[in-house]
């Protein structure tokens, strides 16, 4: 077996192949593989995280639901009491009003009665006085009552 210039040719070929592999084959392949490995890792992490998040969200929604229910109950209760209160208030107001109206009506009536009584008394007095006048005019004469008058005059003079 003899060594000859083939050796040099093969060394050049080897150098070129290694250089080519070094520049154009190895780095992109390795980089791509690392990128994928990273993506897979990231994906797994993300999915784990999202699973956690889903659980958290479920809990949160449960909490919110109970809270909302409680609130709704509170609001309902509030509304009930409010309405009861309002009805109560309306009732008292209405009875107050009633009393007031009734009271005023009564006083009005009493007033009317008093008025009517007054008027009646007046009318009665007038008619009595007229009747009295008539009676008196017919009955009373100086001659009949001279002595009374005189007596009165005497008293006066005294």
């Amino acid at each position, binding site marked *: 077996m003899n060594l*000859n*210039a083939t050796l040099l*040719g*093969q060394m050049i070929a*080897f150098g070129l192949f290694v250089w*080519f592999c070094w520049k154009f084959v190895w780095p992109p*392949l390795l980089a791509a593989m690392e990128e994928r490995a990273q*993506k897979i890792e990231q994906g797994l992490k993300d999915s784990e995280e999202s699973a956690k998040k889903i659980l958290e969200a479920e809990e949160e929604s449960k909490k919110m639901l109970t809270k909302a229910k409680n609130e709704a109950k509170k609001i309902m209760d509030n509304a009930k009491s409010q309405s009861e209160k309002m009805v109560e208030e309306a009732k008292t107001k209405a009875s107050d009003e009633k009393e007031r109206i009734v009271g005023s009506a009564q006083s009005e009536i009493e007033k009317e009665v008093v008025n009517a009584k007054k008027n009646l008394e007046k009318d009665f007095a007038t008619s009595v006085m007229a009747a009295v006048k008539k009676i008196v005019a017919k009955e009373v004469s100086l001659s009949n009552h001279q002595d009374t008058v005189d007596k009165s005059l005497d008293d006066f003079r005294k």
Partner: protein
Amino acid sequence: MASESSGRTFQEYLEHHLQNLVFGPLPEGHERKFYSKGETTSEKEIYCQDKNMDYDGEKYCKETLSQDGWYLANNKTDIEAMGFWAFHIDTLFFSVLLGGIFLFIFAGAARNFSLYKPGKLQLFIEMMIDFINGVVQGTFKAATNTLIAPMALTIFFWVLLMNVMDLVPVDLIPYPAELLGIPYLKVVPTTDLNLTAALALSVFILYLIFSIKSKGFVGFIKSISLHPFGPWMLPANLFIEIIDLIAKPLSLALRLYGNLYAGEMIFLLIAGMVSINLAELTFTGIGLNLAGITLSLIWAIFHILIVVLQAFIFMMLTVVYMNMAHEKFEQH
């Protein structure tokens, strides 16, 4: 066996299959020899005359070169005359082709990388990248050098693909090539010492560069001179450390070459048992054929292991050496 169809003995068949296709310079006045074709001497002589060459009276046509030039070697004397500046065309062609296939597939996968819908090829490539990355990170502790992992990947796949060529039946490519006029063809580049030595030498040069870079030149000199016995035994230290240093590329080159060359040799020896010559189809001939086919199957299955293992060992040792190169020098 295929050798018989071209009129060769088994010895010649083996030699033929273990010879690379050499392209190199031949000087003026060099005598080239070619196999002549034909049954009788006269036929052979006519064949040679058709090609404008002399006939040597036995097997060959002869041609004397009138000027210097580059030729494909036809036999051992041609190769010897070519000297150092000759190229193994088959080794270069198949290694560059296989390396190109490897880079083409991997670069394509890198370009069409799909994050969410990886195809089967991409998954395979990712697996391989992961595997190489794991090996490198487990062995190579100085993580700052980005060259090591891609180099390991290149070495593993390139050597693996070249080794796999050993599983292609030994005559499948060389025989048709010979019919097309290519005198020799070795399809397994790793059975050529030039290739394994080139890889090992490149790794060794990187080893030296990274050693000097991480230890400093003085540190590197210290590491080979003050080890393992301390400064009082400097010559012994140098002797031991330099042998240790040189053993690295040498063992790297020879291990791969030896394993694959031996594997190829065994395939060839087994192929020698198989014949397509009808005249040999006697009882023993059929028996030999069956034995040869069975043996070659068994050896091929076993060889799958060697093919992968040797590629892995070459890569692993490269990474180990690179790690050693990056270690800081420590006084013991």
